[in-house]
């Protein structure tokens, strides 16, 4: 009797010990599993860099770096193909400039209104409504630019071509307004009220407080939001692909059809360029340029907002 009791007690203890052992093993294994999942984001970055770099190197074995970066003619399909990236670069830079000419004033004024002037209730309505604008897919903006904005602009500017850089530039700017507005507003709202109150106490109006106190104090955040907006505009693809056409013009005339780096990538991949051809490799050289541009902009934005952040 006694031995049997002893026995069942032993079994019971052993079960507890086993369960404990299993739990300990699980506690050790889970962080390893989770780390492997985390590692995927590193692998993604490495993947992007290796893919872009290796094919870009193949491209530069066929076309000289100098010709690529200083060439003003891009004729990939011609009998004597030329691979100058400057037409694409001007297209990208010009469309970005137009977009920012829209996004910066409207974005900043919206941010000022939301942060300094709007009542809490009105702000609670306006802000989500503007965020809707940010949630609309870019393909829809492309459709809008091509079928609505371009025809309207053509009434004013008769020389405007059916595909041009101006219309997608403006629409891209509208798309970026919420981003600039929301990030700048965050920066302005984090300026402590004691600073505002000090200026109000001296008899300043709201406009004077905004100009002389709030904006200077929030400047790093505002600039960071603009830099991020620029990065977004550089990488934007569908709006320019649809509304700006595929002419590889090297010009500053935005009423003409021009191609951006992103639109070139779409055109070449859409045309089913067979692997191993120079055109196929040019895709990666352009994508690498695009990747470096946006990466520098994003890092710059983070550097600015970190480095020059005012602490109160």
């Amino acid at each position, binding site marked *: 009797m006694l031995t049997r009791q002893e026995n069942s007690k032993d079994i019971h203890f052993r079960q507890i010990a086993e369960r404990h052992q299993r739990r300990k093993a699980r506690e050790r294994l889970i962080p390893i599993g*989770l780390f492997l999942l985390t590692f995927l984001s590193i692998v993604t970055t490495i993947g992007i860099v290796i893919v872009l770099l290796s094919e870009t190197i193949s491209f530069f074995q066929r076309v000289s770096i100098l010709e690529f970066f200083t060439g003003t003619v891009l004729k990939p399909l011609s009998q004597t193909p030329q691979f100058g990236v400057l037409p694409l670069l001007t297209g990208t830079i010009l469309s970005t400039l137009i977009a920012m000419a829209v996004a910066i004033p409207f974005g900043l004024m919206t941010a000022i209104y939301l942060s300094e002037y709007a009542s809490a209730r009105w702000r609670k309505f306006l802000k989500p409504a503007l965020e809707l604008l940010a949630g609309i*897919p870019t393909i829809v903006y492309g459709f809008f630019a091509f079928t609505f904005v371009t025809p309207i602009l053509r009434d004013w500017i008769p020389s405007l071509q059916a595909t041009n850089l101006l219309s997608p530039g403006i629409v891209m700017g509208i798309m970026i307004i919420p981003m600039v507005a929301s990030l700048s507003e965050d920066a302005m709202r984090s300026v402590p009220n004691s600073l505002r109150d000090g200026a109000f106490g001296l008899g300043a109006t709201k406009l*004077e407080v905004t100009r002389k106190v709030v904006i200077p104090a929030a400047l790093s955040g505002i600039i960071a939001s603009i830099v991020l907006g620029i990065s977004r505009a550089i990488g934007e693809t569908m709006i320019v692909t649809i509304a700006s056409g595929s002419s590889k013009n090297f010009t500053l005339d935005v009423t003409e059809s021009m191609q951006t780096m992103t639109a070139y*990538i779409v055109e070449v991949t859409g045309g089913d360029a067979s692997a191993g051809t120079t055109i196929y490799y040019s895709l990666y050289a352009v994508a690498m340029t695009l990747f470096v541009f946006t990466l520098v902009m*994003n890092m710059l934005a983070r550097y600015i907002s970190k480095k020059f952040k005012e602490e109160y």
Partner: protein
Amino acid sequence: MVSMRSFRGRMISNQLAKFVFLSASLFGLLVLFVLLYRVIEQGIGWLNADFLTGRLSTQPEKAGIKGAILGTLWLMAVVIPITTIVGVGTAIYLEMYAKKGKMRELIQTNIANLAGVPSIVYGILGMTIFVRALDFGNIVLAGGLTMSLLVLPIVIVSSQEALRAIPAFLGEASYGLGATKWQTIRSVLLPVALPSILTGSILALSRAIGETAPLVVIGIPALLMPIPMSIFDKFTVLPMQIYYWTMDSSLLAEYANLAAATILVLLTALFLLNASAIVIRNKFEQRF
């Protein structure tokens, strides 16, 4: 200098500025209304049962988007499990296990940088690795994996914020009862963070549904007749159909109407997703 100007002048310029700032904020809303009005006006007449359940066709009157709708659903079927498992897993690792230091900072910076990489670059990655190197071809799985990589940073960051927002006493109480770390995470922290994690995942999903550029790069045929029945089939999605019909509208004006009708379907889907995110957040979010 300020005192040199009359009090009246300063008040007037303040009121004027307020009006200008308000007008600028309303500009965005105005564009939103014009855009929606325009799309509805052009597309609503073409939106009917035949359009939703019909197959693609070169004849506008016969064309339908059943394939694109199913393609979008199949794409979600790939994106949802992958981004949830990897995204939430990464967030748990970074918030609960990773030691503060150089390594964690590196991973965090890397995720922030990935979030800023243009979507078309992900398309090139997907085309090179999934479509060509692994030789999947342009099937749902290849597109879904590419989209998953694209939206993963969004899921990771929002899940991290959700975990960080949980007050420390909940975890401490669980440890105090003798629970292990994983037991605490699984049974205490994750259930509390779930509504916020879900909201972030839904927003990431709506980004994936609306993206076009990566799929253009992967190579989706313009006129795909077969309807996808599994993740190993060739497919098309709603944004791709909008793209092709918009591009072809210069050939035949009716294609623009088909594009508008498809936009209505896409925007409705996005609206429903976002509305469900708001409902989840309001209904289940706990305050401490």
